[in-house]
């Protein structure tokens, strides 16, 4: 067995302080010597590290980082080094299953697909395609998503398509659209090589994106370390390295960010010419943040005034700044409003579109960027604007269908509403791919109830019999990463090609092939009577997507499988203008806000209402960015006598999305086989709880029990990792954190609020 280091105990690997390019370090994990190496990249977090898959006798025997890759320079973290083992797990699904007499029983592909197709056709006849819903993943490839988007939007014409990316990156997309006109990250990971300061808001990078964090650790060990400002209610690994750590009370992100903006304005840390030439909305922003003095912020959030001042000094005076946000922002109260304030910091200081400056509205899942680009979630392909008839016409022309076939009469249905339509019975077929809502959604008892509903046909396409698949009516066995070819894009717009290294087990099929089979059986046609979907291989699907993306911000037209093979990942836009991809967007400070180009006409940050086109056109910002203000609002559920503590959730280093894969990799499972309930020493003493004691946490919606872990958290707050489910443990006592969380979402991004609830605890 070859292993370059024990990544379980040594998560980030050795330090190499640096200046200039990030030094190469090739991490490797092999169970036996590989016969050949196949190019790929890791899909276990949104970093997307380039790697090669080692193959011997038709089996994966390990992985090694790709030295030349711009994302990781050869490094891999614990999940990347071990996660592949799930491919060989003995409990892979190898044949379709159909529920007969209450039991899931093996069936042929023909039986399973016929059942789905017959039901689809019947439902469309009786109720229109509005009775069909799709709930996809953040883990498929571009080719899969684009095909799914076309078959759903131009084949069926259903508005009910979303993905679990709603739970992870919907707010990132919304915040980018609102400030800059379209989705798309303005900066790059390489900005971390030179930046003077890093602001991490609700982003525990050390645990979530270990290789990206190694880059920061290496900068900290180098000759010109950046200053770090971390905003997080817990004392995480990330917070431990901070120059200034702000630990706000749950639900007060916006107050703290408004406080920072207030101080930037008060101390005149502003780029006045930039604000004047390239933004709109300054006066209102100034007025809104005016009252958020450090004292007021302290009273509300518990962040000491002098710490806020210290943070503002770093953010206000460094010449370059990289800011990142993740679930601590996106799954909290006022998610979009808060994420937008991070953009505002950069706009006030003019720190955008140049080396060392980046805003990374992070993605929780690896390929969630692609659901947003390809139209497999609530967005239209190519960041098109559903409110703009010209954009709908572009798609109709491309697909050769009538524009009215494409649902655009109202915003596409977001995930939470799709589930609600299932609950009330108007969606009667729900097709779920590569995700596990029975563990990942809020208020699990409700989700289980919906999945069990009699008149809802639940189709689950997955590699394992997950908690969700166990409740399905039809289960389709799918190939995993390494068993199919396709491309995907990480948070900083880097596109990687991942080749098929081995065959899927049994009768499992690639997701693309399943979608193509469905489209063929449904006989989707274009206006000329030709098959709507004209491609049959991943490469052809990629070419079709390239045509769709051309001329839009996410322009892939200069990429090809050939170009992505052999070297390293390439960032979009990649076209004639940027043949090697673009490190930064908005280098000329022209934003994508022109009325005929933008992806949205804007939102009311409080009510979430989409603005009308006429209103937007009347005040076309013509390339200026928006400084959108928002005032603080209290959370909807707060601790009271019955439920006296705050509850919040998050991830740990060793697991990823409901542990479907990571829980099946031996080393990762053994490193964190169970969840925990994190408490402050004060609260533990008050309840007579000692380290390791079993603690039962109860909210208005349910309860969960896990052992206690004491310290590293503010008094009054209880934390649980949210992705522990039941496939490897009994349902009793319940242990999933989402038994407790609220069915409630951000008005703009529709992302559920996982980060707060009121709970009580007791020692079991």
């Amino acid at each position, binding site marked *: 067995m070859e292993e370059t280091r024990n990544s379980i105990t040594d998560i980030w690997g050795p330090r190499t302080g640096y200046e200039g390019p990030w030094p190469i370090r090739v991490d490797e994990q092999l169970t036996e010597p590989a016969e050949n190496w196949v190019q790929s990249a890791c899909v276990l977090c949104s970093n997307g590290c380039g790697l090669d898959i080692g193959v011997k006798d038709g089996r994966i025997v390990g992985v090694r980082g790709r030295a030349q890759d711009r994302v990781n320079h050869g490094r891999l973290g614990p999940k990347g080094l071990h996660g592949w083992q799930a491919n060989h797990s003995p409990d892979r699904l190898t044949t379709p299953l159909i529920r007969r007499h209450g039991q899931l029983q093996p069936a042929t592909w023909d039986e399973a697909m016929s059942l789905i197709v017959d039901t689809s056709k019947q439902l469309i006849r009786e*109720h*229109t395609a*509005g*009775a069909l819903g799709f709930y996809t993943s953040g883990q498929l490839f571009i080719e899969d998503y684009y095909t799914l988007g076309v078959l759903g939007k131009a084949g069926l014409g259903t*508005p009910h398509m979303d993905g679990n990316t709603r739970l992870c990156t919907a707010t990132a997309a919304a915040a980018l659209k609102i400030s800059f006109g379209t989705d798309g990250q303005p900066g790059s990971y390489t900005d971390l090589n030179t930046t003077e300061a890093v602001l991490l808001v609700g982003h525990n990078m050390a645990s979530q994106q270990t290789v990206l964090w190694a880059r920061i650790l290496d900068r900290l060990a180098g000759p010109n370390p950046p200053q770090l400002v971390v905003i997080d209610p817990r004392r995480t690994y990330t917070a431990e390295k901070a120059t200034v750590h702000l630990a706000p009370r749950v639900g007060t992100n916006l107050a703290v960010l408004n406080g920072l903006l207030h101080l930037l304005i008060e101390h005149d840390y502003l780029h006045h010419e930039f604000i004047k030439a390239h933004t709109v909305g300054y006066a209102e922003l100034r007025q809104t943040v005016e009252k958020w003095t450090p004292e007021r912020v302290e009273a509300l959030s518990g962040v000491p005034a002098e710490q806020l001042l210290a943070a503002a000094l770093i953010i206000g005076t460094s010449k370059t700044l990289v800011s990142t946000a993740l679930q601590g922002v996106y799954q909290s109260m006022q998610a979009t409003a808060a994420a937008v304030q991070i953009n505002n910091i950069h706009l006030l200081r003019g720190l955008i579109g140049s080396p060392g400056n980046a805003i990374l509205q992070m993605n929780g899942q690896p390929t969630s960027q692609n659901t947003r680009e390809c139209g497999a979630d609530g967005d239209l392909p190519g960041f098109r604007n559903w409110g703009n008839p010209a954009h709908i016409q572009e798609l109709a022309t491309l697909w050769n269908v009538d524009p009215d076939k494409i649902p655009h*009469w*109202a*915003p596409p*249905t977001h995930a*939470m*509403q799709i589930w*609600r*339509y299932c609950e*009330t*019975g*108007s*969606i009667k077929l729900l097709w779920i791919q590569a995700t596990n809502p029975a563990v990942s959604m809020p208020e699990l008892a409700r989700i289980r109830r919906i999945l069990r509903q009699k008149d809802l046909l639940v189709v689950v396409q997955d590699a394992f019999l997950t908690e969700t698949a166990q409740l399905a009516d039809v289960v389709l066995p799918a190939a995993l990463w390494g068993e199919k070819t396709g491309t995907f894009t990480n948070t900083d717009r880097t596109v990687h090609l991942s080749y098929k290294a081995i065959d899927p087990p049994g009768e499992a099929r690639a997701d693309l092939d399943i979608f193509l089979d469905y489209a063929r059986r449904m006989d989707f046609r274009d206006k000329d009577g030709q098959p709507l979907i004209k491609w049959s291989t991943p490469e052809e699907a990629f070419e079709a997507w390239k045509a769709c993306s051309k001329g839009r911000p996410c322009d892939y037209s200069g990429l090809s499988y050939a170009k992505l093979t052999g070297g390293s990942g390439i960032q979009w836009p990649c076209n004639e203008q940027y043949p090697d991809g673009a490190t930064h967007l908005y280098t000329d400070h022209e934003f994508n806000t022109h009325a005929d180009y933008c992806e949205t006409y804007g939102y*009311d940050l*409080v*009510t*979430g*209402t*989409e*603005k*009308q086109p006429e209103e937007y056109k009347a005040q076309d910002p013509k390339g200026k960015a928006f400084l959108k203000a928002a005032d603080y609002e209290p959370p*909807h559920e707060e601790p009271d006598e019955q439920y006296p503590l705050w509850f919040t959730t998050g991830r740990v280093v060793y697991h990823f999305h409901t542990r479907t894969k990571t829980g099946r990799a031996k080393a990762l499972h053994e490193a964190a086989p169970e969840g925990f309930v994190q408490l402050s020493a004060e609260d533990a003493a008050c309840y007579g709880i000692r380290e390791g004691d079993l603690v039962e946490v109860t909210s208005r919606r349910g309860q969960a029990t896990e052992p206690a872990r004491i310290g590293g958290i503010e008094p009054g707050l209880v934390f649980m990792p949210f992705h522990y489910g039941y496939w490897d443990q009994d349902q009793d006592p319940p242990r999933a954190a989402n038994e407790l969380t*609220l*069915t*409630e*979402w951000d*008005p703009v991004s529709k992302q559920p609020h996982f980060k707060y609830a009121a709970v009580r605890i007791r020692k079991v």
Partner: protein
Amino acid sequence: MHLGNYLGLLENSEKQLARAFDKVSRHHQDEPDIEQMCQKLSAWSVRHGGQLQPFLVRYADSRSPEPAAMEKVLFGQPRSGSLALLRDLHDLWLLTNEVKLCWDIIGNAALALRDKELEATCTACEAETKRQLDWLLGRIKQAAPQALVVAA
């Protein structure tokens, strides 16, 4: 002068609207966004009512004894289900329009009277009433196709 009357009409309409938002919030607790947003928008109408108070006093003697409120027959019984939700949002939209028109009319009168204070209040409240309307319309558009075409 009938301004006092109209202010009374507006006050009543805002009160009615606040109650109606509140009612819809309670009737549709299974729709989390409806519950939360209607509560919030109800609070806006309550606040608007508060902002009217100084002007009700200022123009009190211009009140004629005409009936001040137009009672609506909207919102008879509690309704549930997707069609009922649509009907309730529809009714809220009508009521909100009533309020919006009142603010508009009184804003005009304020201009004629050169009452800067009243004018500012009308501008601010009307803008918020417009946001109430916009939200209702957006949510109606979202709910309508499913309720009218797909749901049983």
